[in-house]
């Protein structure tokens, strides 16, 4: 759930935009480098952004009987890295604000910080640590998707708590309040999103290898190894990199 248009006081909206700006600028620089180096990845980047948009537009059934939206940052981070996700996620948020009425223009900075910066950073860190601990790609993608989602919503709760501190409990009290409200839907939802991320990564490795190799997500194995990967061996044998 993104912060609605105009919900944050002006000072907070401007402050969060200023905090997000360096990440956004760095992301644009990285994105231009990727596009210059791999011109054909333009469609894959746009596809990923549009996929994140559709993912976040889908309503998932939750155990509380309500429905909520996944963030979709885990998949983008695993494929492209956290720096590229800053402009990509901000673009998705802009379209969400203009086409789906989720979020807004004044709260774009705050929403971008939670969904396009904090979430992807955590997802990337979790993915990297999981791979270093020799977790399989599926497990690492699941953890990245789940933790990225939780990080996004914890950041949103912190942003709302900073803007509207509790009369008695201050920031901590307000953070617990907003965090509890989000937790009802986000804990099960994040697990579902993690599962979906793992499934999609697995399918991409099986069927979209050329794009993943081009983006340096996986290294091009020697011919005989590639034959093994396409045959009896598991895709996990192909070493993944950490995005372009």
């Amino acid at each position, binding site marked *: *759930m*993104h912060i*609605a*248009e*105009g*919900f944050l006081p*002006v000072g907070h*909206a401007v402050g969060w935009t200023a905090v997000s700006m360096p990440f956004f600028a760095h992301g644009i620089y990285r*994105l*231009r480098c990727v596009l210059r180096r791999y011109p*054909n990845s*333009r*469609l*894959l*980047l*746009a*596809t990923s*952004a*549009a*996929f994140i*948009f559709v*993912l976040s*537009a*889908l*309503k*998932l*059934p939750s155990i509380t009987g309500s*429905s909520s939206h996944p963030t979709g940052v885990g998949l983008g981070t695993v494929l492209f890295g956290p720096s590229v996700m800053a*402009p990509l996620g901000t*673009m998705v948020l802009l*379209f969400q*604000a*203009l*086409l*789906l*009425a989720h979020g*807004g*223009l*004044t709260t774009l900075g705050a929403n971008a910080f939670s969904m396009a910066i904090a979430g992807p950073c955590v997802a990337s860190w979790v993915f990297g640590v999981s791979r270093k601990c020799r977790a399989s790609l599926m497990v690492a993608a699941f953890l990245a998707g789940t933790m990225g989602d939780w990080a996004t919503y914890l950041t949103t709760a912190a942003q*709302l708590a900073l803007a*509207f501190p*509790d*009369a*008695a*409990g201050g920031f*901590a*009290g307000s953070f*617990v*309040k*907003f965090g509890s*409200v989000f937790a009802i839907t986000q804990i099960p939802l994040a697990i*579902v999103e993690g*599962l*979906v991320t793992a*499934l*999609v990564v697995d*399918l*991409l490795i099986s069927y*979209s290898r050329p*794009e993943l190799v081009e983006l340096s997500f996986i290294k091009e194995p020697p011919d005989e190894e590639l034959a093994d990967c396409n045959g009896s061996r598991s895709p996990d044998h192909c070493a993944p990199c950490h995005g372009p």
Partner: protein
Amino acid sequence: MSFHMPHLNYQHNRWQGKPAGEKLVWSGGLLALAMFLPVYPGCLFVLITAAALALLSARIGPKVYFCLLLYPMSFILLGALVTPLSLSLDGGLTLRFSALDPLKVLEPGLRSLSAFCSMILLPLTTPSADLLPFLNKILPEDLTELVVLTHRLIFVFCDTTEQMRQAQDARLGYCSMPSAYRSLSSLLAALLLRTLDRCRRLESGLSARGLGRSLCMLSQRQPCSPNAVASTVLLLALIAGLSLSWRGCL
């Protein structure tokens, strides 16, 4: 599970022929007023003006307009429910209603609603092609290209998703919670693969036709009328003046 993409009916509204710059002044001006004016009565005036412009002047369908309001309303209601609750961590965890003025509790919600109605005026009345010249001025060309491509793909994805969801629904794919999650996972995986394939074919087709790096779009660029912009600014200043004088700030 449901999938709903609101149809922003910019093709069927009376502001269709209006220059994009003029609509941008209206939407941006009202948004700025919603953020900076005192909530009572400033945001109320902005809300009424934005709704009147959309429903009466631009003739946006009331059903489309109120459907779009549902999501921000749910966020605002959630905020209004949580804000008056006070959580104390001293001497154990206690939760009680704080003695806040009800009008004070509604302030962020009302400001948010008026800001949203101001913002949505632009996408409801303006096709994206008309906004591209403005986007080109603030973003690098590569990124604008990516934004345009993503915008196009979003609608391709949405159509494909809707068709796949209907097919799954017809086969009782969403009749229980476990089957809903299974159906959703397979829908997303199949969707990504299908659209990647479609993109690959699109890229090959466009390359074969000698397409360069950028996609050219035709748009009817109309210059802004200075009189119209001046009258809009005057009306916005009138709203600001009226709100401030009402509060005794002038």
